[in-house]
């Protein structure tokens, strides 16, 4: 019962936080809402007994990534800015999209129930050893490729930001 209640609390926190990110005009407030959303998500992971994932989420995202966002916001001095109001076309498109989503959710609610219990996952659970074992067996290749992905991301950022340093040649 408590777990059920906690599930709804954390879900609400996650969803409302995410909505706050989208609707806030002030970038700092948006980043803070993102933080709230992440805390809710970490709570959901705790309920699933994935403690390691919850801790990592708080460390990496709430700790590092949001701080980075805030730094960038401060460095760039981003103002909220005015948004152009919706035109008739966007309003119509949004209505159609919302109606489609509502229809989808309704039909999923009516027909989407699954009678059989869902199978459990591999269940590395909360143990660090379980994660480590999986990372170095089944998911060894993705871990290795991510290294190349990071190398590429780093170089790409350097290449693109160099351009803005006024080193334009041929002029």
């Amino acid at each position, binding site marked *: 019962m408590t777990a059920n209640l906690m599930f709804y609390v954390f879900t609400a926190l996650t969803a409302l936080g995410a909505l706050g990110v989208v609707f806030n005009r002030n970038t700092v407030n948006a980043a803070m809402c993102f933080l709230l959303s992440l805390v809710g998500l970490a709570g959901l992971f705790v309920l699933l007994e994935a403690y390691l994932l919850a801790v990592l989420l708080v460390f990496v995202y709430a700790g590092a990534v949001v701080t980075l966002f805030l730094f960038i916001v401060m460095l760039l001095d981003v103002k909220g800015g005015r948004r152009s109001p919706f035109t008739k076309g966007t309003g119509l498109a949004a209505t159609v999209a919302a109606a489609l989503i509502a229809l989808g959710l309704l039909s999923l609610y009516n027909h989407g129930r*699954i009678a059989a219990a869902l199978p459990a996952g591999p269940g590395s659970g909360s143990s660090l050893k379980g994660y480590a074992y999986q990372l170095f067996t089944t*998911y060894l290749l993705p871990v290795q490729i991510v290294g*190349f992905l990071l190398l590429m991301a780093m170089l790409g950022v350097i290449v693109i930001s160099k351009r803005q340093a006024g080193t334009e040649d041929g002029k």
Partner: protein
Amino acid sequence: MNAFIMPFLPELILLLGGLVIFVITLGDSLEKRARTAAITIALALLAASVLCFGQEAVLFDGAYRIDAFSQLLKLIISAGFLAIVILGGNLPDIRPAIKPEYHLFLTLSMTGLVMLVSCVDIITLVIALELSAFPLYFLVAMRREREGQRIQMESAIKYIMFGIAANGVMLFGFSYLYGLTGTTSLPEMMVKLQPVMHTPIAIVGLTLAFCGIFYKLAIFPFHFWTPDVYQGSSNETASLIASLPKVGGVAVLVRLASLASPDNTLIPILLSALAIVSMFYGNLIALAQKDLKRLLGFSGIAHAGYALVGFVAFNQAGFASALYYITGYMVMVIACFVVICRVSRDGSNVAISELAGLHRRSPLLALTLIVGLFALAGLPPFVGFMGKLGLLTTALARGHLALVIIAVLNAAIAIYYYLRVIREAVFGDDGGDQTPIVLDRSTQALCVLLIVAIIVLGVAPSPIINAISGSLAGLNLPLPPAAVY
């Protein structure tokens, strides 16, 4: 040890090659050396793919499978890679200082694609998909800035935003499939998904998972980036984006589509709806284009729609004809882009009117363009015709008559704008500009090879179709094997 290295050789060559180019990027003004390295890697990759053809292995605890299917696609992709490196030439529209990085990103993107076709685990699949996509975002943004050409950043932002959104949707779909089956391995998932495949959640999950691939293929409604990215990126980058990722996309779609059982009725309806909209959208808007790259972008959307027709049939022959078609498309579109890259002055975009008098300026380029466009239009004896014929035959065999009629109608629309380009190239008024275009040896060889490939694939399609069908048979698809046409 040897049992690991041999099947994994193409990937190892690409990874090592990537590191070698990385070292080259650290030095000053080594763009020539980077290009040499890239060509060497492409040649080595092609040789390795030929050498490893027919290898069978399961690596990384079942996450990575080397089979006839993956090896065949690696061969196709490595041939395309070589063509793209040669076509790039000395990259006229990239700043000299970052040319080595361009080759590095190109190589890493190929690494992602080569790995993509072997992945049978969804986590590995997603990572490989990202490794093939992320370098492309940077390549788009690396175009030189100059007067009247500032849209590359906008294109790159559009590309990356759509890419990340589509990836997110795909991951969400995978999470449904994982929740239903409790495994990330595709073969296991295929077995466990069968009893629940008729439930809405499985269909929704699979459809969402398709979305990431639809983005790669530029299928409606994930097509918005296509024309802008083609226009905004440099000619060499556009030729890469237009050709190779689509082959990888179709390959992954084959692996994912095999998750659904063949008696499923909803997914073919969805796929045919998307195919129809993509074909009409791409072809009708292409009619009004003046920029050759934008025209190819819109026609690319239509061609992705044709390829999807093969998936509507939902049997082995359908998948085989989709793969054959997309292989042919790769060759045809590279042929068109060779012409764009060489006709363009200083790397700028090419308007259709600039092609005027091409047959006097460079007969070989004009011939390449004509063969490429005739093939794209689907005229015999070129590969585009055999590809469309195969797709339509398999769809018709499964009773999708309306879809076939619409596809034929679209092929007729497409002929108009392809012929318009050819008319401009052959009969257009060149205003006295007859400066001949000088081609280097490698471009000449590439043009000849592309023309030969387009004709040979079209005239004698049975070897490659048999190879593709044979490799599909090894995938253990839960499909009724159909007679190969």
